């Protein structure tokens, strides 16, 4: 009998092993979040996603989970394809572990997950530009404050 837990473990393995340079063993087995923060974030969020996959497919919950996963994967040495591609590994896993699920339904749900994953990946990449800009503004923080103080442009 398939359980979401089985799906979760297999999906986690897939996510960890496609991560370039990741030592999958450490990612998968070390449970201390501060000795294995990557594994911890993957595990926590994949669990949430599997719950949604077998449940209500709540959009906000899915986006939040992928938001965290993609924050990580978008700054690793991964191509977009590899960063997002692990979502499609769910196809085979679900086919084997949850044969009771209608293939069309499973496909539709995986597609929705993939769209969220891709959107979150892009959002993370875009955030990098803002981070750089804000950091530069803070580096000139005193000059900006002075300008604002003297009635110039806003700080």
């Amino acid at each position, binding site marked *: 009998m398939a359980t979401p837990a089985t799906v979760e473990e297999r999906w986690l393995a897939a996510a960890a092993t496609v991560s370039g340079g990741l030592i999958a063993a450490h990612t998968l087995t070390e449970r201390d979040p501060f000795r294995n*923060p990557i594994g911890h974030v993957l595990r926590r969020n994949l669990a949430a996603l599997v719950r949604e996959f077998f449940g209500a497919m709540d959009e906000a919950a899915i986006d939040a989970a992928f938001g965290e996963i993609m*924050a990580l994967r978008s700054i690793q040495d991964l191509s977009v394809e590899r960063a997002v591609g692990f979502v499609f590994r769910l196809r085979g896993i679900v086919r084997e572990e949850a044969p009771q699920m209608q293939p069309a339904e499973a496909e539709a749900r995986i597609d929705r997950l993939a769209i969220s994953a891709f959107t979150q990946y892009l959002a993370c990449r875009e955030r990098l530009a803002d981070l750089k800009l804000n*950091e530069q503004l803070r580096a000139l923080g005193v000059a900006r404050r002075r300008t604002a103080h003297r009635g110039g442009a806003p700080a």
Partner: protein
Amino acid sequence: MADRPVSDIELKAPKGDWRDAHVELRKGTFSNASLPKDLIALGLPNPRKWQPTDLDWQLPPDWKGILLRGMRERLAKYRSFRLFMDVCVRCGACADKCHFYLGSGDPKNMPFARAELIRSVYRRYFTLSGRLFRSLADARDLTEDVVKEWFYYFYQCTECRRCSVYCPFGIDTAEITIIVRELLSLIGVSTHWVTEPAANCYRVGNHLGIAPHAFKDALDFARDELRELTGLDIEIPISRKGAEILFVMPSADYFATPHYYTLLGYMMLFHEIGLDFTVSAYASEGGNFGLFHSNDLMKRLNAKIYEEAKRLGVRWILGGECGHMWRVLHQYMDTMNGPADFLEVPVSPLTGTRFANAASTKMVHICEFTADLLYHEKIKLDPSRNDEYVVTYHDSCNPSRAMGLLEEPRYVLKRACNHFHEMPAKTIREYTFCCGSGAGLGNDENMEMRLRGGFPRAQAVRHVREAHGVNLLACICAIDKATLPTLMDYWVPGVQVAGVHELLGNALVMKGAKERTTNLRGEPLAKETANA
């Protein structure tokens, strides 16, 4: 738990031979090369225009000889270097302790593996077994690819020393990194983010190259703002001969935010206790990017501190909130540019406390000084002015691991704030996780690598944010103040960053001051907001 063995969980080591030195220099994961103008200003070798992504790094013709001679000299000069090349038993205790390994999963970021990148070359050229048996002894030839690999991985080490806390032999990979960067600098391989501030510092006295009149301007502005905030005229004396104390701070305190609010905090404190002090337009930078380049450059940049103390005729030196500045001051200054026998052992003029721990350097950390004032009830605080903040404390690597400054900042914070929560034990104090941007890595172009390196720290902040609603990360390091806000915005949005003395300044009750309605950032106090 899974209800059957899962076949596709592959517990295997990564593919490939670790000895393969080739590195993929992906945008976002390395720092730009030094500019020729800065190398020329500093009198450093091989100034040229190049970038790490170039195929040809334009190394000097005898680059290999230069590096091997450099290694030989340093093996003879630094006993620690020789020891660290010989004693690692590859026990693995340090393996999962480096934030760059934890955030990137790249095995060459395991501290022993990082050190192995030079150890393998050491074995090849400096041990009999390596000379005779090469690969059997895990010895590698020194090639251009190895040089590129060193550049990539030794500029991915923030010299934070977390690994050394766990090593049974006390191997300090940071010291190895310092030596490798020094070797690379001999052939003109260094980074812009390190050599530009160093060159500015060498010529003008501070990282940004702020000239004395602009320095004065910035401090005059602080005085204006303090007048508005407190109603008091808080003078900031510059290069005043005969003052009792020289106060040295990182230059970011007077040009960047949130550092600047810490500067306001210091000055309010000094005014309130009537401290006889001066800042200096010459020693206008406590930070020392020389540390991230070579011992020689660190020494040259540091020399101004004692020189200025002597010229101004002060009795002792007080230092502001900075990380690597304190590593240099505490661990190297006395040996490099001392003895400071023209100064006195620091004694607090308010409490009479003799800072015997600073008997040789003659320099006291502002947190020690303030904690002592609080302990002796010399200042009054109203912590409710910080009530909008739920605070946690990031131990900056250098003050915590290089100085053991663990209690004093906490003592100040707990008196200045009503809501304080620690992050998990294995992520603070001597076990603290680095911000991921120290040691000259904190630049734009290296952003992705920094976010990887800072990920473990951010996870610990996130933990207390979820558990206690923490919304402010306090710290005592200028690099932290520049880069932790970025880290928080990315990993834990909603958490601000502040210096310990900003929070102290918020809470400080000052004689004759008008009633405070805003904090040092000009934001309404929590009670004002509640009354509105």
